[in-house]
């Protein structure tokens, strides 16, 4: 075989970028599922929305509101887009998801699937499905860095480190703080937590907002790497579902590790056997189901 070790290393590193996005998305899915009992099919759509919020904020928003000079740059988008999408999530939860309390799981999946279709359809009407490049990559992140064994694009390194930090911060928030303790207690026994005087419905709504905000943040980070397209979320969410099945939704750290690992494997597959690169995650899922049906970090 004429595949150099270096090529594998490079693709593995590039794959880590994707892996970090998988981790952020599956993290949000796991947190939402824990408290709402809903598998959020719209997660990919909110990721797409985050990327579009960054793109529109930079290129179009000023024109719409009559201030052509207004441009929301990348750094502001990193803050504002998740906030905006999170608020939208709060709205979605309060108007729709709330009404599913007590129904079978599958209705949550179907409802959020509908939401995903609406968002995706709306953007398909106004934007090219082939994708629009995001022109606002900060200048200081242009170029490459020498990592010793390879040259790595600065922006990708930034996105990787940033998303890892967000993942670890989320882990800390949930596993090590008081708020996280309440959240975990709410997952185990909401009635009891409510009886202790905590506003569980509010907690649930904010959790949903936080989860989809995380997806939007991943979307903003992805915008300068991939082109922004209405379908970018739909393709991603199915892979993320497979990641969730492999990792199991029980453990936060499990979700992070699984996401990163699979992103890397996917990248390496691009060098070793290119035709399988888009299916390798699903094949691994099938193998995991055979060997460890509950998932790598799952408890059923």
């Amino acid at each position, binding site marked *: 075989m004429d595949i150099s070790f270096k090529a594998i290393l490079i693709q593995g590193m590039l794959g880590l970028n994707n892996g970090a996005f998988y981790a952020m998305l599956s993290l949000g899915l796991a947190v939402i599922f824990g408290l709402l*009992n809903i598998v959020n099919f719209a997660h990919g759509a909110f990721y797409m929305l985050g990327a579009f919020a960054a793109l529109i904020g930079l290129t179009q928003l000023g024109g719409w509101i009559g201030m052509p000079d207004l441009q929301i740059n990348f750094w502001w988008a990193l803050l504002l887009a998740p906030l905006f999408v999170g608020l939208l999530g709060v709205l979605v939860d309060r108007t729709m998801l709330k009404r599913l309390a*007590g129904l079978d799981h599958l209705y949550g999946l179907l409802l959020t699937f509908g*939401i995903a279709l*609406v968002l995706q359809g709306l953007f398909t009407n106004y934007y090219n499905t082939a994708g629009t490049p995001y022109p606002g990559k900060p200048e200081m992140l242009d170029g490459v860095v020498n990592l010793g064994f390879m040259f790595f694009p600065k922006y990708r390194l930034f996105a990787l480190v940033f998303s890892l930090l967000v993942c670890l911060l989320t882990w800390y928030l949930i596993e090590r703080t008081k708020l996280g303790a309440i959240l975990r207690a709410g997952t185990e026994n909401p009635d009891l937590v409510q009886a202790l005087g905590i506003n569980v419905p509010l907690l649930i709504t904010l959790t949903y907002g936080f989860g989809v905000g995380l997806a939007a943040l991943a979307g903003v980070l992805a915008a300068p790497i991939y082109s922004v397209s209405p379908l970018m979320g739909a393709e991603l969410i*199915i892979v993320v579902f497979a990641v969730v*099945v492999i990792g199991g939704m029980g453990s936060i750290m499990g979700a992070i590790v699984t996401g990163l690992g699979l992103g890397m494997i996917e990248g390496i597959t691009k060098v070793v056997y290119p035709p399988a690169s888009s299916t390798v995650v699903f094949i691994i899922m099938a193998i995991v*189901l055979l060997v460890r049906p509950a998932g790598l970090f799952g408890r059923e």
Partner: protein
Amino acid sequence: MNRWLWIILIALGLVAPYVLYPVFVMKLLCFALFACAFNLLLGYTGLLSFGHAAFFGAAAYAAGHSIKVWGFPTELGILTGTLVACLLGVVFGKLAIRRQGIYFAMVTLALAQIVYFVALKSSFTGGEDGLQGVPRGRLLGFIDLNDSLNMYYFVLAIFLFGFWLIARIVDSPFGQVLKAIRENEPRALSLGYDVSRFKLIAFVLSATLSGLAGATKAVVFQFASLTDVNWATSGEVVLMTLVGGVGTITGPMVGAFTVVSLHSRLSWMGSWVTVIVGITFIVCVLVFRRGIVGELQELLRRLRGRPTRARPAAAAQPQATKREA
């Protein structure tokens, strides 16, 4: 099963091609069979598969390829497609039933994506162009299927056979066990039923009949394309079942007619159709969970003064509520 229903169904089927465009009615029948097969799993076993397009599409490709390239007679080609869907159903089913509840939907969706990528990358499927120019051929060697009425009655026969089989399965003792599993899986297990085996058989039957629908579709339209295996098609069949009424025998058929007609009426709207489909999903889940047929049954029941069913069939499992605020 109600005899009058059969008489009406057959009468409508016989007259339809003289009232409506035959190809359109054939499309309706293919999707109606697909939705009925899907409902066998969702409505009567309580399992939500989000990957049924894999069976529909794989069968369409297999039927198209065997007829066009290997020169199989039409009926054998359709059988080949159905068989492929059946085998795929065994593999997917064995994997998917290892996980319960909501994971089941995610697993089936992910597995179906493998089929999609194989169809996209392989050479025999024609990739993005799809498999085109499948000849309709002659049925039993002498009935020319290029004549649209001949083709129509052949499709009608396939549909009625499939629908009869599903109705028969649902009414059989086997079907009763499936319903028991849907209502209360632990209880069915404790009564000594091998729940996994029943689920697998239901899954394979549903996959096989979905394949029959897909293979027939490939012959009617003379092509198989990536749309047939796409996740959007999996979503579409869920919608048809939901609109018509989950867990009712005629619901999916009514739903399929509604959704297919909606698509053909609104085709001028481009991608706004996706938005409308999405809104339909949301409305159905929030306020219309019984579906058209389910609501009608409920109305009849109320008119006769019988007690109402508290919740639609698929939502029968009680579970802890997290917010009754």
